[in-house]
């Protein structure tokens, strides 16, 4: 930051740090100084606890509150009994979380893309009703979905027992709407002129879909995959309500049951692994997204639009 300031031609006579500090103390409400302070304090305090938790996953000792030196990968795989890799319960929960996220991505994304296309273009009363139904999972508190799904599997779909299958069905149900919102947003922003051009040039409907629309939707499909991965791996409530016991434990369920029972740093290591996975996923998706939307107007294709697409709120 300071390099950038120095290399730029300086017009305003620069004031010393002490002088600026004195101005600040004299009038903290002038200009947006107060806002700068609030913003940075918030941003730092929102991230610091997580960084400290990750730090303790590298603790040399068994404490989660006193730093006993850097212990390397002890709690990841070094410890022959208690590390994530060697504790069967922790290792299993890691694979369970990844398995659910993978299944969720594989099912919810294609289903959601089709639903988005259908809902965006099908008009009429039934379409409005379906649209309303699609929005419900976004606003229903998770506990309500958890209770209702578990009661449904207990009383209606009795052939589905609490199991990985049940968890997977639950995950797809709540992630479907996110895919629809993301893909539909993209669908509106690309408009119809490309498909019309393709049709005018003699493409069959199937060719228009496959060769024109699908490639144009790719960035949104990709964002959807990432969102589904993130919300599935983050989910606690649905996984817990449809859990079959220890074999269905995901990482969040493990964290939940461990926090109140004198956990070891291995639980921090497990949670940190989840953070590494998601951060890796965003990193990759950001690069791919940039690659896919290359050449589009920055207003639509830039990082900002990915943020809003992934936030899934800016409909």
């Amino acid at each position, binding site marked *: 930051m300071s390099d950038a300031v120095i290399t730029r031609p300086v017009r305003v006579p620069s004031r010393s740090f002490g002088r600026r500090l004195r101005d600040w103390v004299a009038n903290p409400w002038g200009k947006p100084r107060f806002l700068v302070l609030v913003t940075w304090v918030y941003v730092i305090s929102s991230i610091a*606890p997580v960084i400290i938790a990750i730090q303790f996953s590298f603790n040399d000792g068994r404490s989660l*509150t006193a730093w006993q030196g850097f212990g390397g990968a002890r709690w990841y795989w070094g410890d022959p009994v208690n590390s994530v890799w060697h504790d069967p319960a922790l290792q299993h929960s890691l694979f369970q979380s990844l398995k659910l996220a993978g299944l969720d991505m594989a099912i919810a994304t294609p289903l959601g893309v089709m639903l988005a296309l259908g809902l965006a273009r099908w008009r009429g009363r039934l379409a409005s009703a379906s649209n309303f139904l699609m929005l*419900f999972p976004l606003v229903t508190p998770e506990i*309500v979905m958890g209770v209702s799904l578990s009661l449904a599997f207990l009383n209606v779909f009795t052939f589905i027992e609490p199991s990985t299958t049940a968890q997977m069905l*639950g995950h797809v149900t709540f992630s479907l709407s996110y895919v629809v919102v993301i893909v539909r947003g993209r669908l509106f922003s690309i408009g119809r002129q490309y498909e019309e051009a393709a049709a005018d040039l003699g493409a069959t409907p199937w060719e228009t879909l496959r060769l024109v629309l699908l490639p144009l939707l790719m960035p949104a499909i990709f964002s959807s995959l990432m969102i589904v991965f993130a919300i599935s791996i983050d989910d606690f409530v649905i996984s817990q309500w449809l859990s079959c016991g220890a074999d269905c434990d995901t990482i969040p369920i493990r964290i939940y049951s461990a926090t109140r029972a004198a956990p070891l740093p291995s639980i921090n290591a497990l*949670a940190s692994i989840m953070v590494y996975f998601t951060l890796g996923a965003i990193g990759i998706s950001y690069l791919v997204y940039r690659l896919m939307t290359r050449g589009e107007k920055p207003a639509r294709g830039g990082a900002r639009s990915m943020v809003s697409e992934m936030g899934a709120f800016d409909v």
Partner: protein
Amino acid sequence: MREHSGIYPRGLWQAFALPGVVWLLLLFLVPFYAVIGVAFGGVDPIFLIPVPAWNPLDWNADSVVQTLRGFLPGGDYWAVFLRTTLYVAIALALCLLIGYPVAYYISRHAKRTKSVLLALLVLPFWVSYLMRMLAWVNLFAPSGYVNDFLAWSHILPDPPDWLNGNPVSVILALVYGYIPYLILPLLAALDRIDKSLLEAARDLGASPFRAFLHVTLPLSMTGVLGASVIIALPMFGDYYTPNIISGSPTTSMLGNQIDLFFHGGPQPAIGASLTLILSLFLAVLMTYYMHSVARATREVRDE
């Protein structure tokens, strides 16, 4: 706008929507009806398992009425209901108090730092909620960094126990947990405000503060409402935050009560009634949000 039935065969979009709609009907609507069925059903006298009533004519309103009565002052759920509402209200107010200035600053003033700040804002989104609660528990443990700091700096030489039935830490944890979900939509709403309106206000002689008060604030109200609803809904159904942070019945919320009836007690009919009452209570908020989303979608589609 030309009608586009020409490009694609009739019924194609309906066919595309069908699998998703069927999925939601079977795994969202039917399950919700199962809650109603269990809430209005009876209990098998021998096995003590719930017998759901699917036909509205067979409904037995005993559990629902009994549960509803619990919400009256002095009833079983009165205190929990009051506490939940209070916690959510305070947490929401704190979220807005912190979140609005942050969103406002990033939308209006941050220039070179904007993308960095945005990335940092989105980051908590990608760290699991439970992970963030775990981090919070580590920090506020009796020998954790927070107490160390409080004792070292003599602010509180004898720091309190944060993690056993302390409502302050439950509310702060709710704020910490949900505020990222408030700031992003708020930021989007503030970004959408037409800057020329603000310039007009300034040109006509309004001070920056008056311009904010009479232009920006009213124009951002829809965004504030939407963002508040987005975080109020899950907060009302939260049971894991109080459980992790406090674990004491003195801080339990409605969600804990529901959790208890399913995972602790043998009265699913009461649990289902509670779930039903919670959903009806939240229906106002849900409908408001869905209407605003539907309106925004129509505007985008028809522009």
